[in-house]
């Protein structure tokens, strides 16, 4: 870990102005991702701006019926909040599926959105990596890529986004509220994270100096059907090989609305819009779920070691939709 100067921001404006004036400055919130990265020299900030004591710790209902989650709400507080457990069970479950209680106690909503990939090539400076340093190459494309992306990857990067929370947020149509020196703006979650393209060094569309201040959850009338299913190499305390968030609104015997988002398969939480559209107006049955799963993965481009993720994703989608169709719950 390189040495840095440390400062405790005393207001959002203070934090934003420091990070804007010093391009080498970084925010630190829970620290569970950044401290980890600093120790292995993935980031070498000149200045750490500690935002953890700022006033962004509330969960409140807005007058439009949305739920506004402050960026510093811990993962534990989010997952346990009664409104979240009642109205966004898939979000609660997704957050609880991530990491461990200790990490969730420290980790914040903003930090979780900004956590970087767990690609082992990115995570060790012994390897070149386009994400760490532009145009140095991506050894994962020809190396061990069992955990890498099958959707939306590029030649320059095949990393996946590791966040569980973001997958549920994608399915919920959440919106990220950010603040920069220019003021506040809102970014739909599904546009918040980016595909790698030729700029894998950029994970998100946050501009330099901008601070995440909140995440807004719009009301979701069929929230009870929400499911978050995470498949992994170890029963707990492991990142997803594949995960899926689903919710279904069924009217009569037809699907009115469907939500399907995948985790562990792409550089961003992956909303399977075409699969969702296919399901609208269809009966909530096995064969339609199977077809939806096929559609969701039709563009998959597996690498040498992660072909299994295509099949595993399809099956996870089928299962999660089936559980959603039965009213949701633990899958």
């Amino acid at each position, binding site marked *: *870990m*390189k*040495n*840095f*100067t*440390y*400062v*405790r*921001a*005393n207001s959002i404006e*203070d934090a934003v102005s420091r990070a804007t004036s010093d391009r080498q400055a970084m925010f*630190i919130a*829970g*620290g*569970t991702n950044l*401290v*980890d990265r*600093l*120790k292995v020299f993935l980031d070498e900030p000149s*200045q*750490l701006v*500690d935002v*953890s*004591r*700022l*006033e962004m*710790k*509330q*969960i409140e209902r807005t007058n439009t019926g949305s739920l506004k989650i402050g960026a*510093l*709400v*811990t993962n*534990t*507080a989010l*997952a*346990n*909040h*009664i409104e979240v*457990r*009642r109205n966004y*069970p898939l979000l*609660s*479950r997704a957050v*609880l*599926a991530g*990491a*461990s*209680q*200790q*990490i969730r*106690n*420290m980790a914040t909503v903003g930090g979780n959105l900004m956590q970087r990939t767990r690609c082992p090539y990115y995570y060790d400076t012994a390897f070149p990596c386009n994400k760490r340093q532009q145009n140095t190459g991506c050894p994962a494309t020809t190396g061990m890529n069992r955990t890498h992306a099958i959707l939306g990857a590029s030649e320059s990067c095949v990393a996946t986004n590791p966040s569980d929370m973001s997958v549920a947020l994608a399915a919920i149509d959440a919106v990220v509220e950010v603040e920069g020196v220019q003021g506040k703006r809102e970014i739909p979650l599904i546009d918040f994270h980016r595909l790698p393209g030729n700029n894998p060094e950029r994970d998100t569309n946050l501009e330099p100096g901008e601070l995440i201040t909140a995440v807004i959850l719009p009301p979701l009338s069929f929230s009870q059907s929400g499911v978050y299913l995470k498949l992994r190499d170890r*029963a*707990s*305390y492991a990142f997803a090989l594949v995960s899926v968030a689903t919710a279904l609104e069924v009217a009569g015997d037809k699907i009115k609305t469907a939500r399907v988002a995948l985790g562990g398969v792409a550089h961003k939480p992956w909303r399977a819009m075409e699969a969702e559209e296919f399901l609208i107006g269809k009966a909530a049955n096995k064969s339609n779920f199977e077809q939806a799963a096929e559609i969701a993965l039709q563009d998959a481009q597996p690498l040498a070691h992660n072909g299994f993720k295509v099949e595993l994703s399809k099956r996870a989608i089928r299962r999660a939709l089936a559980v959603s169709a039965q009213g949701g*719950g*633990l899958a």
Partner: protein
Amino acid sequence: MTEEEQKLSPKQRSRRNFLGQSLFTAGAAIAAPSLLNSCQNKTVSASNALVEGETMIGLKINGQLKTLNIEPRVTLLDALRENLGLTGSKKGCDHGQCGACTVLIDGQRAYSCLTLAIMQEGNEITTIEGLATEDNLHPVQTAFLENDGFQCGYCTPGQICASVALLEEVNNGSVSYVTRDLTNPPELASLSESEIKERMSGNLCRCSAYNGIVAAVQQAAGQTPPSPAASIEHSQVG
């Protein structure tokens, strides 16, 4: 009633009070974690002075204020182990991947390897060294001892701190990934093994004393765990 308590159902509130009293009488008092909302603002002023190089900071550890001179890049774990001689908190991985460094920060369990010491100024830190009183082990420590919840002992301080927090979390009505109905959190008396195991999974044990640890948590939760001993099926006389 505090704001967070208002958010609990009456049932949860009474459970919290009841168990909160019975469970920790023999142990050290631990600040109740404010589970449903993260920590309130600390007394430490958000002074925004730039800290460069070694600086004097103050940490509240096991009820005592300790001052130390460290660089801002020193983690809480290294501050405890290298600067304060509190080696009870273990370094297993240094990357949040094992749980050996688990301590309680304002009553909530956290990995001390993933936070900077300077960020914890003003917070109440409890380490394994702060759980027992002079005469009495904390009930969770006793339960570990009796149920053989360890072998080499290296993961043990972390497992114990995690268990202490777990009991309090359940008291406060928290849910886990395996809680079937998220609106109906489990209670200590009927907390299932799968709940305990999921909630303890952030603490790895390579000696694999997992059965004993689960039994220790059950005991501390007021349940009756199975005996940790083997059954001996044959005359051992000789």
